């Protein structure tokens, strides 16, 4: 994680703030920081999105490649997450410094995304399928990775266009595929089964959503809950080195689920709104 140095007085200040429901940046315990989301920002990727949650900046690119299905799931495509912690975010990530964090995030993400049906990505059972590489680039860290990354991933998957396969020929055991090179001949993924993650950090006796990096250092345990549109949970992850009481756990998961459903619907509204602007909308990228 980004190195945030806080002394005990500062930690107490944050703790007391959370107790009276007024956090350091003026938010209440259940408030998110402002978010900016833009899709289709990288033209070399099949789908991309950039999400900025106050100081956390995430860029996600989705690339599609043709691959052979896993022998145990011959009728399904593949989905792979790769997280890269850029040194731009903090010098601690230089070289291989961010690798541990990156592995942790990507393995948790793939667990949460097990609910995404991969059958539509199959082209020829046992022979060929699409493999989606979801590459996540962390450009600045200001706390609350999981929420920001999951929102950006969902937006990027929404934006992903998989080319149509126009023909396939069986040629002596191996398959030859004809993939359309017309950029408009493509199909899109169904992302209703893609979860968003909601992090609740336990600070003192209360839980806060969307913790800043400073708040994260004050928290002993956080619960990350992956929530679908329908309100079902696909994963619950505990981060941090502390433990929680049974009752707290149940309460936290319940709260997170409510927030997750809301977050899902506002994300979809935002994505549809952007979509309705048409392909000629102005793209801001990093210039805004």
């Amino acid at each position, binding site marked *: 994680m*980004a190195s945030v140095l806080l002394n005990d007085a500062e930690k107490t200040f944050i703790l007391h703030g959370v107790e009276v429901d007024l956090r350091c940046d003026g938010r209440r315990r259940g408030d998110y920081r402002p978010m900016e989301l833009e899709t289709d920002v*990288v*033209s*070399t*990727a099949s789908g*991309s999105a950039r999400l900025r949650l106050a*100081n956390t*900046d995430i*860029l996600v*690119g*989705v*690339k599609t*490649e043709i691959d052979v299905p896993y022998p145990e799931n011959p009728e399904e495509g593949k989905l792979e997450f*790769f997280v*890269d912690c*850029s*040194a*731009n*975010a*903090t*010098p601690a990530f*230089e*070289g*291989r410094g961010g690798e541990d964090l990156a592995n942790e995030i990507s393995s948790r993400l793939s667990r949460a995304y097990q609910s995404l049906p991969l059958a539509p990505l199959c082209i020829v059972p046992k022979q060929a399928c699409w493999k989606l*590489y979801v*590459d996540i*680039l962390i*450009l*600045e*860290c*200001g706390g609350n990775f999981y929420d920001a990354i999951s929102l950006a991933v969902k937006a990027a998957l929404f934006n992903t266009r998989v080319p149509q396969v126009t023909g396939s020929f069986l040629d002596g055991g191996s398959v030859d595929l004809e993939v359309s090179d017309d950029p408009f001949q493509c199909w899109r993924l169904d992302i209703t089964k893609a979860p968003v993650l909601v992090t609740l950090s336990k600070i003192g006796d209360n839980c806060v959503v969307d913790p800043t990096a400073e708040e994260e250092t004050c928290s002993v345990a956080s619960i990350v809950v992956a929530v679908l549109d329908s309100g079902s949970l696909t994963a619950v992850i505990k981060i941090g080195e502390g433990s929680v009481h049974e009752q707290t756990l149940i309460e936290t998961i319940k709260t997170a689920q409510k927030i997750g459903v809301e977050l899902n619907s506002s994300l979809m509204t935002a994505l549809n709104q952007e979509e309705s602007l048409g392909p000629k909308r102005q793209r801001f*990228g*990093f*210039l805004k």
Partner: protein
Amino acid sequence: MDLISDQGLRVDGRRAGELRRIRCKLGVYDQPDGSAYLEQGHTKVLAAVYGPHQIRGSRTKALQDSVVINCQYSMATFSTGERKKRPRGDRRSTEMTMLLKQAVSAVIKAELYPRSQIDVFLEVLQADGGNYCACVNAATLALIDAGIPLREYVVACTASLANGKVPLVDISHLEETMGGPNLTVAALPLSGQIAVMEMSQRFHIDHLEEVTQLALQGCRDIYKILDKAVKEHLLETGDFFPQLESN
């Protein structure tokens, strides 16, 4: 397909001496001491500068009379047409890191910060030729944003030779892959000094002069664009420099 048509137009419609559109922004992020974003055509680069600060890691790296400059070049896995397996650590990235270090070392007033370190991190978000140039230019902007004393700007530009006679400036990825030599120059445009020069493939030595001149001209043109962006940024962020407005 020719690199340049009979009408004097290149594959993407530019003239031989024409640059791609450059758009840039200083101060994209709060956490680094300096940051910049630069777009050169479809090549998009982010730069972040940390420092000067205490040496990280082992103290033995510290220099008694100058600053340690630490660079890292990395490419997003989705930045290229074919997905990259690793963002950094491959040979090309290591070479780029080294060349970048050479370029920024040429301008930073290293003697001002003994026993300290400056980090320059570059992240290529989208690659479409001239990655190194975009990185050097972005690094210059980020260093300026960080307020690190520089001798002058360091600006990089590529040049090529089409059909064995017409020099081209600012080569795109398509032109790179279509063949033709590629001369990369990182220069200090005001004093006309060259910090880094690298060339791939070959052309006759008679052409070297004009190709180099064109690359240097490109550097001078980019310098003007960057300088304008810096001035605009300063006007935007504060009214410390009222005399700039008269320029």
